[in-house]
């Protein structure tokens, strides 16, 4: 059976339901969002003239859910405009809409009876091939489906999103006993390819995989903290970045999630897993109970394990809970020798820092050992109870809990045998399957062989090959397979098959430097000769944060204007080389694509952005202007597609260029790829890869598609407004200055931007070449570099990471 989800229905418009609906629209799927009818008409409603028949009243919960996600931070929508793709209604009047959808996902309150009653109604209206899922995080699928007819059971499964659904990669899929395998296969594919999620297939067990292992992890950390009499900030310093956790560590994360949520999840678990060997750890601790009573639930109640206040001088101060006295005391940054030692190794990766932590000789080492060993044993004991193999558990913790390494990867980092020795000393019960594994001479959970990655399978008692997903291009693997074509310290060119090469940047934050530019030229030469196309992208968090401003500052301080001029000219030329290469170049920006990064992303034949792309020309923040062709290319973008003759006929370009001016002068950065399109940095005709995993593959397909009939673009003539544009921007800037929205120097820098966008000294309606604009960019950049206040801005950015308003 061929399934295809084009339209979906989300039942339940709470935070989770509404944000799931928002993410579906991000993937281009129209939704209906339904919820219950309010319980009763209030006096306020009556005063507004509402009756029990008013749709405004009947649909209120769904409408409020939608309004909430429109305002939510972080944003659930790629762009607020997506809200129009969601139709709101209620369970009584609008269930009929479900007949028109391909997927129904239930996200109502965690109450079995309510869910069963709702599904009984749903069953009557959905098409027989409609896929129906629940987003439950704890209720077994077999209980929910108990009264279903056979047809619905075949099309029913659990799809458990993690909050917030747009940003969390993990999506747990829980097939029921009768779920058809092709439905599971389709949903897996759909959620990966269309929604951009990472899928873990779970068994139908309490809390599935992520929250089972995650609850243990947190309970384990809390118990150790109390048992070892650690302060809250001490525990977070230990079980923090050095162990591959986020900066918020354990207690900061609990405050963010909410203690009530954590408490609810673990007490549910306690009741649901009577046979779990570690069950007692899920019983809410005395401390958690006390905090629940006091309603110290974390950030939402403004206090939890931490509390932010201001001291006598009005300076922000962070307090933490002293759980003995239940009072808040100042939190610090506790130092542990082992943590400091681990940090020194941070360049070697998180596996190295975890190893240092595990072997530490102080209390931090002691805690790490006990904490990790408990986690390891618990995770090992859960296979195959909660999922088939170790991969699911590792992925769930990485994708759903933001751990950099899953428990088995962490265990490998330390050494399986080394950890077992420690477990023995701690008198912990070592799982038989681990002893078996070591006896067989299998010393790691994962093993890299020539033909790919293998993992240890407890059931097969041996290594099993991890079947690679052909849609996931892994550059490190390709390098290992001799596919590296050329490399320097800043970038590499890799053969990604079928005649396509990938230009990968790998400087710190992918800042643009000489090496990178050199590789662009080299890559273009090679691709032009030997390949059909090129993808520019990487697995790094950020596509590129732009120019290395430290180098710019050094050149300024040396007074070496030749270097500065070369720097600008090289980036311009490299970008123009990519743009006019005879083979198609496809850029694949993701994460930050700022300044020079934005410019590079724009100078490709096509762009295949990741949904989470934060793109913009931010140069004015450091007192300069986009000079790598950014102004020029934005001018091309905002004026391309105009029919011939309209400029001669007097087309008013004022609003078009004002938009470009505002983008650059206000250093606007998109909060998604779609916003990047709205700003004009990505063409609206491009496609978006929702997830990172398949982005390079997607980009490669675009390159291959283009390669069949590719002709490099013809040179562009850009229509400009000339001096008239400057008159207009001067008048606007005066108002902004008077209104204190801009400083004198902001105005100065903005006038340089205006000069470039005006096209120079020419009349309105003149057509100029790209080279003319590039020359204006260069001139403006160099002149600003000579200004003290620009230098101050650069210095400030280097010192603080924040822009200076001077």
């Amino acid at each position, binding site marked *: 059976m061929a399934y295809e989800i084009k339209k979906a229905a989300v039942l339940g418009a709470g935070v989770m339901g509404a944000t799931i609906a928002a993410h579906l629209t991000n993937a281009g799927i129209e939704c209906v969002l339904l919820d219950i009818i309010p319980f009763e008409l209030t006096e306020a409603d009556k005063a507004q003239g509402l009756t029990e028949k008013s749709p405004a009243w009947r649909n209120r919960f769904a409408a409020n859910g939608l309004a909430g996600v429109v305002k939510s931070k972080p944003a659930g929508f790629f762009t607020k405009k997506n809200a129009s793709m969601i139709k709101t209604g209620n369970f009584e009047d609008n269930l009929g809409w479900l007949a028109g959808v391909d997927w129904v996902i239930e996200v109502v309150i965690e109450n079995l009876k309510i869910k069963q009653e709702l599904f009984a109604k749903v069953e009557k209206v959905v098409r027989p091939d409609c896929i129906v899922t629940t987003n439950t995080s704890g209720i077994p699928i077999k209980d929910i489906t108990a009264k279903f007819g056979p047809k619905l059971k075949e099309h029913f499964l659990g799809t458990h999103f993690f909050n917030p659904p747009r940003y969390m990669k993990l999506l747990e899929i829980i097939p029921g006993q009768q779920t058809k395998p092709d439905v599971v296969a389709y949903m897996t594919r759909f959620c990966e390819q269309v929604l951009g999620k990472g899928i873990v297939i779970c068994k139908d067990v309490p809390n599935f995989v992520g929250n089972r292992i995650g609850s243990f992890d947190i309970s384990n950390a809390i118990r150790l903290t109390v048992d070892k009499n650690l302060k809250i900030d001490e525990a977070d310093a230990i079980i923090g970045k050095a162990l591959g956790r986020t900066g918020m560590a354990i207690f900061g994360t609990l405050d963010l999630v909410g203690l009530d949520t954590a408490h609810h999840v673990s007490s549910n678990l306690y009741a649901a897993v009577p046979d779990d060997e570690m069950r007692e750890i899920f019983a809410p601790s005395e401390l958690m109970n006390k905090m629940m009573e006091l309603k110290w639930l974390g950030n939402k109640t403004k206090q939890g394990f931490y509390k932010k206040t201001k001291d006598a001088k009005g300076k922000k101060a962070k307090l933490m809970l002293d759980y003995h006295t239940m009072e808040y005391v100042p939190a610090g940054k506790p130092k542990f020798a082992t943590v400091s030692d681990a940090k020194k190794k941070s360049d070697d990766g998180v596996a190295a820092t975890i190893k240092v932590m595990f072997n530490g000789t102080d209390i931090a080492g002691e805690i790490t050992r006990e904490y990790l060993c408990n986690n390891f044993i618990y995770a090992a004991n859960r296979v195959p109870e909660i999922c088939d193999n170790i991969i699911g558990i590792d992925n769930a913790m990485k994708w759903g809990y933001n751990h950099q390494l899953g428990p088995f990867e962490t265990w490998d980092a330390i050494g399986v045998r080394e950890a077992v020795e420690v477990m023995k000393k701690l008198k912990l019960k070592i799982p038989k399957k681990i002893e078996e594994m070591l006896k067989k001479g299998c010393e790691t959970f994962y093993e890299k062989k020539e033909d790919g990655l293998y993992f240890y399978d407890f059931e097969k008692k041996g290594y099993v090959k991890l079947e690679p997903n052909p849609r996931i291009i892994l550059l490190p693997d390709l390098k290992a397979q001799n596919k590296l074509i050329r490399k320097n310290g800043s970038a590499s060119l890799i053969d990604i098959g079928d005649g396509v090469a990938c230009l990968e940047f790998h400087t710190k934050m992918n800042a643009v430097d000489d090496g990178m530019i050199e590789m662009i030229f080299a890559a273009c030469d090679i691709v032009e000769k030997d390949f059909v196309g090129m993808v520019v992208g990487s697995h790094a968090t950020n596509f590129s944060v732009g120019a290395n401003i430290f180098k710019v500052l050094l050149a300024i301080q040396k007074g070496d204007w030749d270097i500065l001029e070369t720097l600008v000219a090289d980036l311009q030329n490299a970008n123009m080389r990519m743009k006019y290469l005879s083979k198609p170049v496809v850029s694949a920006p993701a994460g930050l694509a700022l300044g020079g990064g934005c410019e590079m992303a724009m100078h490709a034949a096509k762009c295949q952005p990741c949904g989470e792309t934060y793109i913009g020309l931010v140069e004015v923040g450091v007192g300069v202007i986009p000079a790598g062709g950014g102004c020029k290319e934005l001018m091309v973008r905002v004026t391309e597609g105009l029919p011939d003759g309209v400029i001669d006929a007097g087309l008013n370009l004022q609003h078009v260029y004002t938009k470009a001016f505002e983008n650059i002068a206000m250093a606007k950065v998109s909060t998604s790829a779609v916003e990047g399109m709205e700003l004009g940095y990505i063409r609206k005709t491009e496609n978006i890869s929702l997830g990172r995993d398949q982005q390079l593959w997607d980009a490669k397909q675009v390159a291959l598609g283009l390669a069949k009939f590719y002709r490099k673009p013809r040179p562009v003539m850009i229509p400009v407004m000339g001096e008239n544009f400057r008159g207009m921007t001067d*008048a606007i*800037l005066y108002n902004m200055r008077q*209104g204190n929205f801009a400083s004198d120097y902001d105005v100065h820098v903005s006038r340089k931007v205006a000069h470039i966008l005006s096209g120079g000294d020419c009349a309105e309606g003149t057509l100029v070449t790209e080279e003319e604009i590039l020359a204006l960019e260069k001139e403006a950049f160099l002149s600003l570099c000579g200004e003290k206040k620009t230098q101050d801005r650069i210095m400030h950015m280097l010192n603080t990471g924040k822009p200076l308003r001077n």
Partner: protein
Amino acid sequence: MSDAVIIEAVRSPGGRYKRGGLAGTRGDEIGIQVMKGLLARVPALKPEDVDDVIVGCSFPEAEQGMNYGRVIAMGAGLPITTSGMTINRFCSSGLQSIADATAKIRAGWSEVMIAGGCETMSHIPMGGSIFRPSPEWAFDGTMPNVYVDMGITAENVAANYNISREDMDKFGLESNRRAYEAIKAGKFKEEIIPISAYKYKVLQNGKRVREKVVFDTDDGVRWPSKLEVMAKLKSPFKQGGTVTAASSSQMTDGAAFCLLMTVEKAKAIGVKPLARLAYFAVAGCKAEEMGVGPAYAIPKVLKMAGLTTKDIDVYEINEAFASQALYSIRVVGIEDRLNAGDINPNGGAIALGHPLGCTGAKLTAQLLHELKRRKAKRGIVSMCIGGGMGAAGIYEML
């Protein structure tokens, strides 16, 4: 020489910017309907007797372009022998057109004229749709900034002359209260020509349709309002500024016209004159503080007439912003008259809206009908003007 008299002064209701009752109707259409309504009120006048039409407009371009005056005259059904012109003195255009018509009739160059103003801010943005300040202009203070944003000028007036936020908010609140009361009492009914306005709609079946609806009441009034709520608003013009949406005029659509003729013509066709524009003056001031214009124009016109503020029964001083209106009132020394209800007695542009080039004529219609209700003698309409000017006219009832 013959004196020029005003036979009738009428206006459309003010329609709120973009969401109001006139937003779907073209400006020329509003102007045409008001002019037709005006002519219908004076059946004794033969259309071919109308010699010339003057339409004031602040942004005479796009649908307001192509010589708006002639477009509206022809659209209103006046014969081809009736001429038409468009004039622009920004916010005072509507008052200026009445002054120019008066002068022309007095000079003996015309016998019967229609003058007023028409502006659709919903369609033509402030600054016009093609904003082209001179690239040669110096924006460093060495030249008056004739292009300055009006909000900035309001902030400047508030800051330079210590007009407090509280006073401005109170002024805005009172404007809305008065407008609300006036509408409730039906005071505007006589001066308003209801407009058969267009509304664009999407039907349930997705079809787009244009509907006609009668629009007969100013729709910008915000009442009830609360000072506490107003106090929370932020200035959109200046960071940390004090001028807010609650103390600024609204952007509005509207048209207003007067019928003027020689005294003799009125007598000949047997119509009773309503009033005359006796005196008119303009005065220049700093562009960056353009709102202070009335503080110069009112004394100037009074001096010209040999009158004092006491001789004036009712004032209509345009509320571009509470800051400039209050400042001008204080400088002229008539704050007691504000409190007594002799200045903007039925609310001002903060509540009823400010359709730029129309407003001078709109306030004329409001003033003359208020004087008529009060059976009073003299009134002043005064405007501040972008670029740094003020205008004031003294009307006398006949």
